């Protein structure tokens, strides 16, 4: 079996090298049949990666501990779902998943990307071949999941923190996001190599970018929820390098998704868009480098493996190659149109881009600062949460405001009269919300108050846009308001789906502001029968319960919860001792109030042998809006991505126009 896995990976590497070399030769010499053969090699590489993945899955499910990887990451006691998720629970397996997704995406992108034109596609193939070659080589020569050993009686098991349903889906979503960013990168480079600098590559990869961006966003929210319910420190994001590694490419991709609209509408920012797509891809690689190189001190345990040097070399190659290519194509990338006014839709998109990129690069600076300071001063200087929070406020609050301003401003040039008309309602809603919140005592955190006021402005602006559009649609077609609304969204899914995504970001901002600026925390040691008060809650520690779980010994403190004298039932919080792994993990107790979005969050900080328990209890207002924002984010993204016949017709027309322009 391991031989089959190894052979499949070697074949995959060979096919990737063929796609790279033959594809590049075919593109230079314009040999169509050879180019087609290179494309087929990419498809075949997916089959080979699939075979290798099937071998590893089979070994995991059979508890075949002669595979070192299986023995290192599973045990006989490990429940089957976590045995499956152990596929991406270790370094080698996660790299294999990366390769599988990459080859799958490459195959689909090449098969469905033919409309972009044979000249561009011919160059896309070797770029995809290059990335695939790198990952296949890593798995063949540096970090193979098919190393074998004399099978031990049992495996080491999976880290208890990873034995959580969220960990079954969080990493795959991140990989879909990271790897998905390869496709727009490959098409951008393909277009530059083919000297096709129109927006064809953007039109062809818009869905890919959206899918990758959505997956990366969902992956991060799942990770945040996992941290919230599993890691048990009372938070959901800690600005750890691993978390930043996923956030940075998402921010770059967000900027890209906005700036491509300027290129599509006005033919501007061509260089900027290519730079953004390279930045997003390089940051995805950089995130992988960070988690595998051991160069940074993190609360996550990084492997000091030889992978880091390989990744650094590959990143250097990509940055250098992209810079040289963009530099050589600069004359072709000049915009034919120019921005007419600083008060226009495209200008607000530009401000939004600058803020997003500034936030992204500031985070990157914070991540790199320990390495740079060590190189310059001889010791590592770390910047913690205060640094990141400072810049999140500096750049995040104006970004929030711009989300409300952008949709209300006209393209090209906006007049003062039209601005006054569009801004009146959203501004009135924002001011009224701010005043009411101030009267309710929200002024205890000015950041929270500003965030809420801006959020009200954005929601007012989104609502205004929906009302204005629905009214116009109804005036045009007649019928009911509901029909007019449905037609409005269906006919312009990209725009209105985008507004729904904006609404989700506002919900996220409200949830983050509420749970971090207005939370309450209390810590006390209680004996059975004693009570502590936190916010409006009274918690009585009733008893300690010990029981056997499927793979862990469980200790739970049973707590009676009351609010304003009314009983809300009991809550259990405690610790699990995982037998195979011999590790302890916190199991928090959470009571969510879905009406107010508030959580009562109970941690048993210490369970003492005399029966006393040290409780740490948080009351987190509005925190559930963060998770609800995830659902709204998915809905918005699906609306944007959902195919429509009208859009397909527009797209086909666009392709025809662009091809005609390219020929002219």
């Amino acid at each position, binding site marked *: 079996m391991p031989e089959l896995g190894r052979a499949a990976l070697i074949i995959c590497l060979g096919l990737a090298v063929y796609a790279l070399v033959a594809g590049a030769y075919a593109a230079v010499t314009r040999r169509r049949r050879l180019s087609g053969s290179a494309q087929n090699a990419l498809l075949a590489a997916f089959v080979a990666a699939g075979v290798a993945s099937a071998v590893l899955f089979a070994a995991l499910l059979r508890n075949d501990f002669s595979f070192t990887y299986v023995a290192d990451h599973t045990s006989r006691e490990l429940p089957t779902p976590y045995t499956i998720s152990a596929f991406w629970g270790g370094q080698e397996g996660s790299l294999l998943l990366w390769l599988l997704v990459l080859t799958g995406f490459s195959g689909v992108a090449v098969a469905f990307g033919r409309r972009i034109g044979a000249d561009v596609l011919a160059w896309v193939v070797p770029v995809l071949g290059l990335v695939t070659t790198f990952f296949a080589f890593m798995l063949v020569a540096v970090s193979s999941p098919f190393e074998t050993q004399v099978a031990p009686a049992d495996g080491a098991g999976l880290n208890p923190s990873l034995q959580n349903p969220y960990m079954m889906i969080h990493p795959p979503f991140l990989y879909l996001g990271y790897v998905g960013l390869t496709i727009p990168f490959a098409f951008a480079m393909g277009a530059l190599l083919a000297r096709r600098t129109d927006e064809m590559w953007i039109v062809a990869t818009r869905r890919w970018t959206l899918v990758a961006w959505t997956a990366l966003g969902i992956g991060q929210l799942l990770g945040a929820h996992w941290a919230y319910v599993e890691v048990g420190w009372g938070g959901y994001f800690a600005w750890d390098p691993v978390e930043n590694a996923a956030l940075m490419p998402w921010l770059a991709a967000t900027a890209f998704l906005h700036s491509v609209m300027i290129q599509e509408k006005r033919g501007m920012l061509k260089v900027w868009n290519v730079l953004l797509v390279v930045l997003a891809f390089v940051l995805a690689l950089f995130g992988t480098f960070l988690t595998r190189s051991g160069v940074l001190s993190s609360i996550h345990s*990084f492997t000091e493996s030889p992978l880091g040097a390989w990744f650094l070399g590959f990143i250097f190659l990509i940055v250098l190659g992209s810079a040289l290519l963009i530099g050589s194509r600069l004359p072709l990338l000049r915009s034919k149109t120019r921005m007419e006014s600083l008060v226009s839709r495209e200008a607000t998109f530009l401000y939004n881009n600058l803020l997003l990129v500034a936030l992204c690069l500031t985070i990157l600076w914070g991540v790199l600062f320990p390495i740079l300071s060590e190189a310059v001063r001889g010791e590592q*200087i770390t910047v913690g949460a205060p640094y990141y929070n400072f810049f999140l406020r500096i750049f995040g609050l104006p970004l929030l405001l711009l989300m409300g301003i952008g949709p209300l401003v006209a393209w090209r040039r906006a007049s003062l009269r039209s601005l006054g008309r569009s801004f009146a309602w959203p501004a009135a809603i924002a001011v009224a919300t701010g005043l009411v919140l101030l009267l309710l005592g929200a002024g205890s955190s000015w950041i929270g108050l500003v965030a809420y006021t801006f959020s009200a402005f954005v929601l007012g602006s989104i609502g205004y846009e929906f009302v204005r559009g629905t009214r116009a649609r109804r005036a045009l077609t007649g019928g009911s308001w509901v029909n007019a609304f449905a037609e409005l969204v269906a006919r312009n899914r990209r725009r209105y789906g985008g507004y729904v995504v904006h609404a989700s970001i506002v919900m996220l901002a409200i949830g983050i502001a509420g749970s971090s600026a207005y939370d309450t925390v209390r810590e006390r040691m209680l004996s059975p029968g004693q009570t502590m008060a936190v916010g409006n809650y009274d918690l009585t520690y009733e008893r300690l319960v010990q029981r056997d779980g499927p793979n862990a010994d469980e200790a739970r403190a049973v707590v009676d919860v009351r609010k304003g004298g009314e009983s809300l039932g009991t809550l259990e919080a405690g610790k699990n001792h995982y037998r195979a792994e011999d590790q302890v993990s916190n199991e928090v107790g959470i009571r969510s109030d879905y009406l107010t979005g508030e959580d009562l969050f109970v941690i048993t900080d210490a369970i003492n042998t005399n029966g006393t328990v040290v409780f740490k209890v948080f009351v987190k207002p509005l925190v559930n809006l963060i998770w609800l924002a995830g659902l709204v984010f998915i809905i918005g993204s699906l609306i944007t991505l959902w195919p429509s016949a009208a859009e397909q017709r527009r797209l086909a027309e666009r392709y025809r126009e662009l091809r005609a322009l390219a020929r002219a």
Partner: protein
Amino acid sequence: MARPSPVRLVIALSVAAVLAIFLLYVSVAGGTPSIQPSQLKGHSGNVALVGKVVGTPQGDGHAAQGLRFDLQDVKGSATVPVVYRGSVPDQFKTGRELRLEGQLERGVFVAKRDSMRTKCPSKYTAKKDT
């Protein structure tokens, strides 16, 4: 003569603003040196101390006298006694790598309350030494 593009003006002003804010922040807030026990000498202010727990920890993080243990360089033999009060992560035990914030006071590293972070063995854990 053609007017300069507003795009360039916006970008230039934005970059200048970002640099100004950045310099302001760095000059006001700075960062925290991240060092190991062997590098503690000469550091009188607040630092992040990284090392591994050696010996047998004594006391309790929630008691007045705190949790007491020795921290050693990850790859070295220099150690420093540590006193810590606050939440003790479940992963804390002898041999575990951890990170604390605090400062050296009369030969003892006094950690800030709740500043202990053990390295969370994530999905990329190093292979065990066997």
